């Protein structure tokens, strides 16, 4: 960890507000290969602030790849060119001295740009509020071991539940579809016994909220899975689609 600094040219998206016209601004930086890309931006911002200039607005919090707050498109890839990491886990040792980087926000109709690299992902919360839960009041739970759940099923559920809600799947998709995000939440509960009572109502409500929030349809290109920092599988989309069809059939039967 004693490597010398590398020099990079950064083209960073600047946009004052949602309605303002944005453009790339170029910066030259010298950075330690052990720094993360966000630490590089911290240093650049520190320099800008010292010069009395407005720093680049970007969001981050845990810087451990779990909170889902950060999200930059680096050289065309949400969370950068490496697989299965969030932006905060992208270290500069993955770039070469003299390289040029393009840093942009997650772009999607449903994610309005707030300022520079910050976007509005509140559509995700609206989808979760529509049905991303098991309706269960505090205090009424039976003993935790009362419902045996096989190790494999618990693991399958956790594979889906690992989604960090960052929105990279939406940014990666040509249609700005949120189906990987919604599919993951639907699947977490669909495979568990606790999720069964509301299984079909849940999928209907969440899909409706997804459409209403302005997310597009699935392109079946799997770009979402390729860019997902948690490697959430597209099989979750298939499970959601299957449940959605079933839900429609069932609701028709009930109507009769």
């Amino acid at each position, binding site marked *: 960890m004693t490597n010398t600094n590398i020099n990079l040219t950064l083209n960073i998206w600047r946009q004052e507000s949602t309605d303002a016209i944005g453009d790339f601004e170029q910066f030259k930086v010298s950075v330690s290969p052990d720094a993360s890309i966000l630490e590089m931006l911290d240093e650049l911002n520190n320099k800008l602030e010292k010069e009395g200039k407005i720093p680049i607005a970007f969001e981050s919090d845990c810087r451990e790849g*779990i909170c889902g707050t950060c999200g930059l498109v680096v050289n065309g890839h949400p969370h950068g060119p490496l697989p299965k990491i969030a932006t905060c886990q992208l270290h500069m040792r993955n770039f070469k001295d003299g390289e040029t980087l393009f840093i942009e926000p997650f772009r999607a109709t449903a994610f309005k740009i707030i300022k520079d690299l910050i976007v509005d992902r509140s559509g995700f*919360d609206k989808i979760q509020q529509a049905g991303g839960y098991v309706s269960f009041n505090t205090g009424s739970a039976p*003993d935790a071991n009362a419902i045996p759940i096989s190790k494999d099923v618990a693991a399958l559920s956790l594979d889906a539940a690992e989604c960090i809600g960052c929105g990279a799947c939406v940014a990666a998709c040509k249609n700005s579809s949120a189906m990987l995000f919604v599919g993951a939440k639907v699947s977490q509960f669909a495979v568990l016994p606790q999720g069964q009572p509301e299984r079909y109502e849940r999928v209907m409500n969440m899909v409706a909220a997804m459409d209403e929030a302005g997310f597009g349809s699935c392109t079946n290109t799997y770009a979402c899975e390729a860019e997902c920092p948690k490697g959430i599988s597209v099989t979750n989309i298939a499970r959601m689609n299957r449940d959605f069809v079933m839900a429609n059939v069932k609701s028709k039967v009930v109507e009769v």
Partner: protein
Amino acid sequence: MIKLDSKVPAGTLAEKWTNHKFNMKLINPANKRKFDIIVVGTGLAGASAAATLGELGYKVKAFTYHDSSRRAHSIGAQGGINAAKNYQNDGDSVFRLFYDTIKGGDFRSREANTYRLAEVSNNIIDQCVAQGVPFAREYGGTLANRSFGGAQVSRTFYARGETGQQLLLGAYSSLNRQIKLGNVQMFHRREMLDVVIVDGKAKGITVRNLLTGEIESYAAQAVILATGGYMNVYFLSTSAMLCNTTAIWRAHKRGALFANPCFTQIHPTCLPVHGEGQSKLVLMSESLRNDGRIWVPKKAGDHRPPNEIPEDERDYYLERRYPSFGNLAPRDVSSRSAKYVCDEGRGVNGGRAVYLDFADAIKRLGAHVIKEKYGNLFDMYKNIMDEDPYKVPMKIYPAPHYAMGGLWVDYNLMSNISGLFVAGEANFSDHGANRLGASALMQGLADGYFVIPYTIGNYFGSDKPTKADVNSSEFKESKEQVKENTNKLLTINGKQTVDEIHKKLGHLLIDKVGMSRDDAGLRKVIKEITDLRDEFWHDVKVVGKGEELNLTLEKAGRVADFLELSELMAVDALNRDESCGAHFREEHQTEEGEAIRNDKDFAYVAAWEFEKVGKWNLHKENLEFEFVELATRSYK
């Protein structure tokens, strides 16, 4: 004159909470909707409280500075959550969990609170499973457990290395359900900058809308602060970038007592610092100490690669010094031991790191078992450190992690200000001078799901607080003060950035109010902090405007509060002339370097009353130990 009343109910330990629940006043279901409650912070404690209060029928307003309540830093907790289920049949019980926790805290927490925490721990697991939290399972379908530091039973429930994430998403899902039902109104991107007190009771908050910069007022009959810990005071810590002390500090400046601020935990297993540009430290779950063995070379100056250092030239110092707990010694003990061996020049390459080695476990269990247990942690390590921990031992070093100190609360989790409740890491109540692993998630959810929903009803039933008007003079005065503070920050226009000053503060604190403290150092650092605070108010540069999204301004407000809190931490550390838990005074140790507690003079909670910046009055709550014997903590 403030009189501290812990309001601990009468009866034996096991009866206290049950009796208290029966004796508390109830609010009839139809009347609950007449009560407004403000919840600030939506991590484990805040989200679980807001959701449960919504379920009960209260009208809740929840606030977070994040874009979504799912981002709170509870999400970063890796290893697990404790409960006294005794599913492993290995001798666990509520009393044992209570005893381990109070002993782990070096007998500086309130018996009744700690017992209640252990008592409701089992309900938490039931609740989370019912919500669909995918905990790890055994092949037979039952829940799996693992061990954590400071315990000799296996009582920690987990979901890979992402337990905090899964529990937070569980609480978040319950919160979402209440938002949909209209019982909870959610306010995102709002930072609480003041608590409003009317006639001695907490009646609302003043917040800054982080998108527009507008200063807004909200009124309610009670305010719950669940705003987390203040470890970012050290600049480098395992806390998320935005974690701060502002909400509880502003409440403190309005009269809420701050308890045991010097009790700050330095977590033993974090990644070492790479350089000055580093923005935060990354934790590696304590659960790794189940299978990893910690060692350094026996000889200082031995800079061979770890795999070339033969077995008999390695010092497995935790196993050597603490044979019965070994690598699972509690956090304060493990951290201090790492500091000692590095002070002796025996750290990795003479620097500040020790080895955490999995070679034995991989040989015994196979790499696939280790991968299944800790796969994501190993991946994280490789990504950051650029080394493969399956082949080369991990390098770790202690880092600031958790604040045991916080606002003083009584048994009902209410501060000395009526109607101001404090939950989770923001309060001081359950962990004494040191928190055991996997107990933070437990406490956050205990407070939010099972304690405050009861005790707040009792407050409404007995105090019958009315709702204040946001146009009243108290709300206006608070708003003006917040605006004035903001303008002050924006007009200094000095030469140093907020981060530069924050880093200076971090260096001062980790050096003198970190893993070990002494009289001379503390006296010196108080002066240095005061000087740095002056420097800040004369020379900080905050660019941009107040009426817009301004991340620099947000940071500046938080660092201004850290510059006041840090002084109180040092004052408290100086006052506590004993070694206990994470608070280690050089003057009070045995020849072997073990802490010497002074129960005669210091078995109390130090609750500090704010008079003005740099001046506090001490109030003492004596700790009575009726049910456990004050013992010298030994892990040998």
